[in-house]
């Protein structure tokens, strides 16, 4: 069987990657909804339809926090293992992965052979997550993709210390009331998120470092992370899809051992 699919059912978006003989032939992304199971199914069928592949011909692995809602998945893996596999494929030799998704952030340390050696998660609050940036973007009335450009215009990034999304929002309201520019607040927020994630590393960062997950698409976050980590941080190719790619690669190995 030569078709395999990875479905990454995340908290904010669903991603599907379809492989034929180990190479990507189709992929798709959709927003996560209330009827999660149906949303996942709809996207999967769309991707299969675009590729002209019969569902019965595909072996499927699911990942992401809603992985247990994926119909027909033969196996599930955590995002940790899947992102590691995906990044190892796209950027062989990667030793550290920063993954920032919709509702948490993770740091993964890889062995030279791409296996996960260790990982750390910020799973106690949303302050190290994409949700944090969304909240701030809404408060600053800028679309999320433009926040990086806004932050780049900052002359004096605001200092934001709150370790909680709700309190950070209060802090931002205070900063804006004190006359801080939206650009300084945006830059301050990116730095704050980057520092929060860098705490996970506990000073242990092995280069090369790759940045993945939906937040890697936000311009400027890579430089904010590079500054917080004190080393170069490269955005992984196709960062929103590394989890789904890893799942698809794991699906292609099903039943091999």
């Amino acid at each position, binding site marked *: 069987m030569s078709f395999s699919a990875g479905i990454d059912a995340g908290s904010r978006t669903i991603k599907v990657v379809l492989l034929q003989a180990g190479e990507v032939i189709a992929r798709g992304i959709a927003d996560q909804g209330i009827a999660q199971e149906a949303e996942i199914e709809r996207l999967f069928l769309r991707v299969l339809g675009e590729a002209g592949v019969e569902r019965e011909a595909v072996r499927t692995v699911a990942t992401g926090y809603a992985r247990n809602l994926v119909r027909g998945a033969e196996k599930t893996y955590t995002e940790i293992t899947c992102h590691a596999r995906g990044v190892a494929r796209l950027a062989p030799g990667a030793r550290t992965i920063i993954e920032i998704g919709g509702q948490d952030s993770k740091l993964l340390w890889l062995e030279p052979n791409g296996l996960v050696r*260790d990982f750390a998660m910020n799973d106690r609050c949303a302050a190290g997550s994409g949700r944090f940036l969304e909240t701030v973007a809404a408060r600053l009335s800028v679309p999320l993709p433009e926040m990086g450009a806004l932050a780049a215009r900052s002359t004096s990034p605001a200092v934001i210390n709150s370790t909680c999304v709700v309190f950070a929002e209060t802090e931002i309201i205070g900063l804006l009331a004190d006359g801080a520019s939206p650009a300084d607040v945006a830059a301050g927020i990116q730095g704050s998120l980057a520092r929060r994630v860098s705490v996970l590393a506990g000073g242990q960062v092995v280069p090369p470092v790759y940045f993945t997950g939906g937040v890697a698409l936000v311009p400027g976050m890579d430089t904010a992370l590079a500054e917080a980590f004190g080393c170069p941080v490269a955005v992984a190719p196709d960062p929103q899809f590394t989890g789904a790619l890893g799942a698809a690669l794991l699906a292609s190995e099903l039943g091999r051992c």
Partner: protein
Amino acid sequence: MSECRHRQDDAVDITPIAWFARMIPHCLDYAVTAKTRGRPVVGMMCEYTPRELIMAAGGVPVCLCGGSAKTVEAAERDLPNNLCPLIKSTYGYHVLKSNPFLEMADLIVSETTCDGKKKMCELMAQTRPMHVLALPQRPDDADARESWYHELVKLKATLEERFNVVITDDALRVSSRVMNRERALRREIAGLMKSDCPPLTGRQVLQLKSSIAGLSADFAQYERVIEQAGSGCACAASKVRVLLTGVPLPNGAERVLDLIEEHDGLVVCQENCTGLRPLIDDVDLDHPDPLRAIADKYYHLPCSVMMQNTRRMDLLRQLAAEYHAECIVELVWQACITYDVEAYFVRKLAEEELRIPYLRIQTDYSPADSARIAVRIQALFETVQGRKVAS
């Protein structure tokens, strides 16, 4: 992954498990009857308290450690939010007067195993009789052993005075023999998990114990487990073998162990105070001074409150090898500073010396983070399996 040698229904007869599932009602019956007959009930909060002394005074030692999230809120009336859930749960029972054993207790023996507990006991002592054992915290100091012995001399005097009894050497020898027997039985049950195909789950091993130690009805059940175990298997051959270490899991606070075992892990060994740690050493029955023999046994408990706690690392090293652990999961209750900091050494031991993956889980009694803990546990197991395939 090896094929399981046995069928699931060959596993240990359910009866002893069912017996211990009713452990609290059994203990309650026992304590009420004993109390009616004039025996004092003595509450205790940690494995440093020698049950042998309480039993030799004619008392019934009962563990009071709280494992319920439900009593935490009541405790937070007096205690800070950022305190370990075990202390808060125990104190919550005190505030709500909802632990019948605590309400029955004629004396509570506590221990200086952490600052939070020390201060909590001060609050509790306002309305309840309390004796606190001061632990020497540098066990390798020349005078530490003597100091600990004198703590037990003081406890003996308190028990004798309060309950108007004389604790004889013979009585100490009798209670030491009973407790040695209990430890031997529970050690043997724990040791069943060394097998490639263990007959029990970690949850079952955890459940096979009692809030009141030394009960002969329990001993009979322990013996049944051991007799039946030879033929059994909990179909665990494909599961990841976990050494669980860190804080104790009091009755009701088994959530993390359950998460491990619900996600293809098997807790083969528990290096903590509700597991093997207090069962390792026995009281030397041939010692001319039985109180000294008891002091020597308890003195060696490798609690994280001890400085230069190398005994715990030695124990972990030994257990990881004996139980073929494939990874170490360390449980740290929120705000338990000593375990939290000592985790540094455990991680180092696991990763640099034992070369097995290590995961530290810090949580409290609330189930809010269960889904996220499950992700971390699954990722750990995927790493263990990935390494197995790669090698």
